[in-house]
């Protein structure tokens, strides 16, 4: 017994260092997941929140209702739509920008690093106000530019499919910066000797890009894919501030659906069931990605 304590005491340092992080993760992430799981089997509402004796256990009813709810179906479809288009776009854009910015390091390149990174650190409300003006059908900048080309007005946020694409455009613009930084760091970690060897062998730029750069970026790409995909499956801020899920629920995402049910209608049990479905969705998608990665060949 005594020696066990002593052993733990001797190995205390790593635990002390990860302790705070684990504690925060536990309190703010792990425990809420279990709480949400439990709540999803109850009819918790505002009454129940004030007095726990008002909560009753209703089994799988929330889930049954969820799978019959047209708006929830729509939110799943929209979320898949967002992630399906948005994630590849973010990766392609941020990788291309990182490659271009990696060509030089003079002042111009530094300025553009800032330019591309800026959207990621700008407040979403400020973005919503500005893009709201840009997208306005009557007097927005985009439609004004189109009118110079004698093109018809586009209802940027007022037609379900176009509104989804408008939000994707906004989110890609906002999401490129942070991933670009990751790619840039990875690019600078590729040893120069590979390129020198390739040059001696007479490889051209494209061959170097596809045979050296992109394969060696696969860890960064994997990381970016996973984090971006998870982020897009939880797509929330953009529809929340720009459209509130409208028109005709055309832009509602799963996360926004959960928020509206929970915090607007106070149906916490129902919202928790929704959030658990989203949770499982994300877990499955992430596991699939890990599976795919394991099967790729090592260099």
């Amino acid at each position, binding site marked *: 017994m005594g020696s066990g304590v002593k052993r733990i005491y001797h190995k205390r340092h790593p635990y002390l260092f990860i302790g705070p992080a684990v504690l925060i993760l536990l309190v703010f992430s792990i425990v809420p997941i279990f709480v949400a799981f439990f709540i999803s089997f109850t009819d918790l509402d505002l009454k129940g929140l004030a007095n726990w004796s008002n909560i009753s256990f209703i089994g799988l009813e929330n889930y049954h209702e969820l799978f019959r709810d047209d708006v929830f179906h729509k939110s799943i479809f929209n979320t898949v739509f967002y992630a399906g288009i948005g994630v590849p776009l973010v990766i392609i854009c941020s990788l291309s920008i990182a490659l271009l910015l990696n060509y030089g390091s003079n002042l111009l390149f530094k300025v553009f690093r800032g330019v591309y990174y800026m959207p990621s650190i700008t407040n979403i409300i400020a973005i919503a106000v500005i893009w709201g003006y840009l997208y306005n059908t009557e007097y927005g900048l985009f439609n004004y530019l189109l009118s110079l080309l004698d093109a018809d007005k586009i209802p940027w946020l*007022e037609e379900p499919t176009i509104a989804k694409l408008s939000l994707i455009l906004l989110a890609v613009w906002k999401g490129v910066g942070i991933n670009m930084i990751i790619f840039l760091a990875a690019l600078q970690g590729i040893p120069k000797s590979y390129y020198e060897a390739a040059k001696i062998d007479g490889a051209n730029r494209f061959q170097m890009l596809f045979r050296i750069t992109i394969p060696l970026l696969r860890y960064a790409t994997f990381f970016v894919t996973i984090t971006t995909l998870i982020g897009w499956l939880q797509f929330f801020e953009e529809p929340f501030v720009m459209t509130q899920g409208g028109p005709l629920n055309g832009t509602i995402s799963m996360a926004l659906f959960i928020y509206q049910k929970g915090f607007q*209608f106070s149906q916490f049990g129902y919202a928790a069931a929704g959030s658990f479905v989203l949770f499982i969705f994300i877990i499955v998608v992430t596991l699939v990605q890990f599976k795919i990665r394991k099967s790729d060949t090592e260099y």
Partner: protein
Amino acid sequence: MFTKVGLSILASVMVLSTMLAGCSNGSGDDEKTISVWAMGEEGKKLNEIAKKFEDEHPEIKVDVQAIPWENAHDKLLTAVASQKGPDVVQLGTTWVSEFADAGALVDLSEHVKDHPEFAKENYFEGAAKTMEYDGKIVGIPWYVETRVLFYRKDLLEQVGYTNAPSTWVELKDASQKLADRGDNYYGFDIDRNDQIMPFIFAWQNDFEFDEEKQNLNLDSPAFTEAIQYYTSFFEEGLSSTSEGIDIVQAFKDGVKPMFVSGPWMVNILNEQAPDLKDKWSIAILPKKEQVASSIGGSNFSIFSSSEKVEKSIEFISFMNEVDTQIEWFEMSNTLPSRVEAWEEPELKDNEMLATFGEQLKTAKSTPQIENWEVVGQELLNAIEQITVGGADVEKQLEKYRSEVKEARE
């Protein structure tokens, strides 16, 4: 080494605990202080008048927290969940039943006897209705608002109306004529995000909510007819289905020459469209079977977690004296809830306010049910399906009624 690690853990624990403490800034810390949550513009200005209260009652201190309306509902939910609310809270009248139902508000019935200014007779009928929930007095009306018709006098004159339209038929006719001025001109603007507007039409059509019924009487033909009237403005191109230009700008340009709004709009128009002076006016809403509008506004309530009920009552009582209400009206331009205040020259002699006073007499409040948010929001969703999605009115309303029923089960 060990002390260093110990310190860093201590530091992170302290950071964590201050973070947690930051979430629960509820009831005032010391015995003297009561905390008051006020929303929106009111929250910013309430401090000034609270100082007056402190001068009169040196034994009580008031700590006012301004909360933006957008965050207010979330914040109140958190307060209910953590049981750490403020002492006095400003509640929008449509939220009263929700929080009263959750048992989050103190029953003030016994205090009403000692404070004659809290008696129901002092307030407009529609406002007095929001005081009660389940036989208990849960709030005291602080200020009221009602919706009236804002219109461009000059433009209506051009199409032959020297007065504002006073019936549904006239409203439709005037809108038609105004919209006929050309492409991209509208007649009567309806704010599609306003939950109360469809019900205002319904009330004008003699519709009454029946809280006893599970579907709230929403299957009455009067209601269906009102929604048909509402949506016809969009179908016939008299109201814009797209967000378009900001309403003040559109009103200024004459693109949207009529709309329905509340007292706050008077100031906004005076400030943002000063050149329009004398070209616009307000009138009570057109009637069908009867004149009607909605009454909204805010009540003061005491949170059930409060330990300073007596002191809080003192504060609410001070705020609802006629003199304070007049002063508050001059400060914030919100309309006093006490009928008596409207006899004072500041309100009586103001022509524009007289219109609001007149409209308030026939203004109705939304039913005191805990799922009002669902009832209001789902109707807007149904209307969107009709006006934008081209769905059938009857079918959508049928679906809406079943959603209301389900929510009320």
